[in-house]
């Protein structure tokens, strides 16, 4: 299991394939569940030009690792990988990638969702948006991923 903080744009498909190639357990994972969060060009009704993602170097990695360890204790996971972007971000850029490899789909789905919710509520990242209007604003709170929007 591994976490990675990226200060430059990354290609999620390359990241998944490169990490998957390192798994010794080829042909043992029947289920791969992947979540990709992408920057949208709008938020709360406003057009967003770009975003800055701030974090707490050291604690952020530690917290992401803790989330993976927690997930591993609740579900049967073969491996898991988190990549998270920081710094200047443009619309269409990948913000977060979560991948869980498991023998069975129930564990893969449960664990990937748990990881995303835990990341959204506990991993020290903060978004500051630059609106098309030129204004900047901090995003105040993440929404609950289990509630329907």
């Amino acid at each position, binding site marked *: 299991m591994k976490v990675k903080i990226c200060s430059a744009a990354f290609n999620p498909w390359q990241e998944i394939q490169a990490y998957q190639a390192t798994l010794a357990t080829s042909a043992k994972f029947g289920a791969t569940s992947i979540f990709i969060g992408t920057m949208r060009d709008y938020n709360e009704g406003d057009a967003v030009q770009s975003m800055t993602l701030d974090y707490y170097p050291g604690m952020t990695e530690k917290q992401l690792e803790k989330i993976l360890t927690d997930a591993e204790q609740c579900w049967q996971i073969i491996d898991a990988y988190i990549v998270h972007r920081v710094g200047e971000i443009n619309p269409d850029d990948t913000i977060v990638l979560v991948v869980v490899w498991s023998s069975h789909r129930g564990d893969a789905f449960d664990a990937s969702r748990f990881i995303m919710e835990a990341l959204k509520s506990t991993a020290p990242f903060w978004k500051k948006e630059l609106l098309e209007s030129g204004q900047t604003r901090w995003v105040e709170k*993440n929404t609950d991923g289990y509630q329907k929007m």
Partner: protein
Amino acid sequence: MSIKVRYFASLGEQVGRSESELTFSQAMTVRDVWQLDTIEKSIPDNVLVAINMEYADLDIQVQDGDEVAFFPPVTGG
């Protein structure tokens, strides 16, 4: 004893800095640290606290050499 205090994101902007070094002799909780370091500013309801990069409560007592961090609700992902 001395500790390092850090403020992140909007909280750093509100407090007006991202880091302080505090030296003091009496026992202090995280809440005391906030009050000592950010005079006249009441502690926000939704503030999150970490000591040495692990989540902690406002009532925990700080130790010499600790890094105490205050930050707003996280918005990653």
